[in-house]
């Protein structure tokens, strides 16, 4: 065989070898295609039909989407998810910043580790358990009301998860409780990576703790804050477990969130098309919120 022929053959062999690399990707891709991509495509398809899950599906065009964006109940439900962002995201991130600063500045050794471990606990138990624990805490004869009575504020006691004005914030508090630990630890980790020289420079410039925080800590933590916001915003928009357990969506629609409504529409009311349209909208909302956060907080990473 001539030299070029050998080379061509070797190249061909290398090419097939490279293609055979797909065998490594295939099992994962297959599971992903069957249990995510196909369902994803079906969600889009279902969303264009009226279907009760059993009988014949009727073409609906975009009318399910029109319903999602015009039905007052559904709009309220989507709004609830956005209100939850305040509790699931802003509070854990804000409070997390404070706690992380304190943990970093004050605590060394056992105290610091213990604080971090305990704050992290809610992150490892099932959300359902968090829901049950807090339902008990916030119930009429639960600890919160007991404390209020104890300090002479008995007039404020109520069934926190059962009343119109307090139900949604009460659900939000549960989410904040769950997510605070994760945010704190992420931020502590981020802070430990900051160059101490920056703090020294700030101190030489005569910066107090607040200035130091604003000028050094906060900008250095951009990426970590971005991660915290991403994780918690998704947790808020796609919340399900806590709400299902703690309130079931009530009273009225006060605490119903899109995830719960999809479940109810699809499996209780048999409105598969509408449930799917809401699913697509939820997916879009998550992307709409998360992509800008990623852009803003990651752009200088290079």
């Amino acid at each position, binding site marked *: 065989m001539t030299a070029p022929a050998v080379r061509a053959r070797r190249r061909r062999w290398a090419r097939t070898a490279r293609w055979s690399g797909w065998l490594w990707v295939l099992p994962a891709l297959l599971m992903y295609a069957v249990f995510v991509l*196909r369902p994803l495509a079906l969600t889009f398809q279902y969303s264009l039909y009226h279907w009760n899950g059993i009988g014949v599906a009727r073409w609906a065009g975009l009318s399910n989407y029109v319903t999602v964006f015009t039905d007052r109940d559904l709009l309220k439900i989507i709004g609830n998810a956005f209100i939850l962002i305040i509790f699931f995201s802003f509070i854990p991130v804000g409070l997390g910043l404070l706690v992380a600063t304190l943990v970093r500045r004050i605590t060394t050794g056992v105290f610091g580790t213990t604080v971090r471990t305990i704050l992290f606990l809610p992150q490892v138990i099932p959300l359902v358990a968090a829901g049950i624990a807090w339902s008990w805490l916030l119930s009429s004869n639960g600890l919160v009301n007991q404390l209020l009575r104890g300090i002479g504020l008995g007039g404020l006691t109520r069934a926190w998860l059962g009343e119109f004005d307090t139900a949604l914030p009460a659900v939000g508090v549960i989410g904040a409780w769950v997510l605070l630990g994760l945010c704190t630890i992420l931020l502590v980790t981020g802070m430990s990576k900051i160059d101490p020289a920056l703090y020294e420079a700030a101190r030489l410039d005569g910066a107090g703790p607040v200035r130091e925080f604003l000028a050094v800590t906060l900008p250095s933590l951009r990426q970590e804050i971005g991660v915290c916001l991403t994780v918690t915003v998704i947790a808020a928009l796609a919340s399900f477990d806590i709400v299902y357990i703690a309130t079931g969506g009530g009273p009225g629609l006060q605490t119903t969130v899109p995830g719960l409504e999809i*479940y109810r529409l699809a499996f209780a009311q048999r409105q598969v098309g509408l449930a799917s349209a809401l699913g697509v909208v939820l997916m879009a909302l998550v992307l709409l919120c998360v992509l800008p956060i990623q852009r803003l907080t990651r752009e200088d990473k290079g």
Partner: protein
Amino acid sequence: MNLSRREQLTGRLFLIALVLVTLLPFVSMLSAALQPRGTVPTGLAWPSDPQWGNFVDAFDVANMSALLRSSLLIVAGVVPVAVLIATMAGFGLGHLRVPGGRFAFLLFLLGLTLPFEAVITPIYYQVRDFGLLNTRWAIILPLIGLYMPFAVFWMRAHFVNVPQELADAARVDGSNTWQLFWRVQVPLARPAIASLTILLFLWTWNQFLLAIVLVDDPAKRTMAGALGAFQGQWGTDQVLLCAGSLLILTPTLIVFLIFQRQFIKALLQGSLKG
């Protein structure tokens, strides 16, 4: 650091208060779980005669041994397979750099922020058509698929950073791709694989939505799904509900306390990458 004593003190007090708030739900549940059954417990009152037997009752009523077995079976079905195929795919995409791999990777990325609720309806009908409703497979198979975006992303990130020279050296020694994978790459990837295993274990154990939609029998669900059913059944018996919930969340708590460092590290890396 030169902080004033007062600053130190207020800071510490604040942290202690926060730790107490974090622990309160657990303590309050424990105090309710120890009250005599049939009474209406109050928020936090240590009973004069703690009824530890309530835990035994809850263990029996909740059918705990069956639940534990079920959750372990589901974890055993999901985690090894998911980790294995994700590692393989990460190797293919990150190290072998298969032609068109970029496209495949983007396809996986598409699922990274996907809320499970958005696809649960078609998954239900699909699982029904496979004839798998009310079996553990109904949870196991979809979960493997749903974990793939994150798991592949995770493992690829590891393999991208392994220096190519290592593989070249192994090739010179005459190993084929299969041997390269098992003898060189997998041992090197052990930390990444361990973190992924911990994360997937936790997410599977705590998975609720799939469990309640796809499986009616609580004894065939995950721990979280079983807990949901338990609440539905005993929601009015506060004492038993608290005892049962504590029992059901104990396994994760124990595993967490033992593997604390690894857990926290895994979850941190997990969110940093995701």
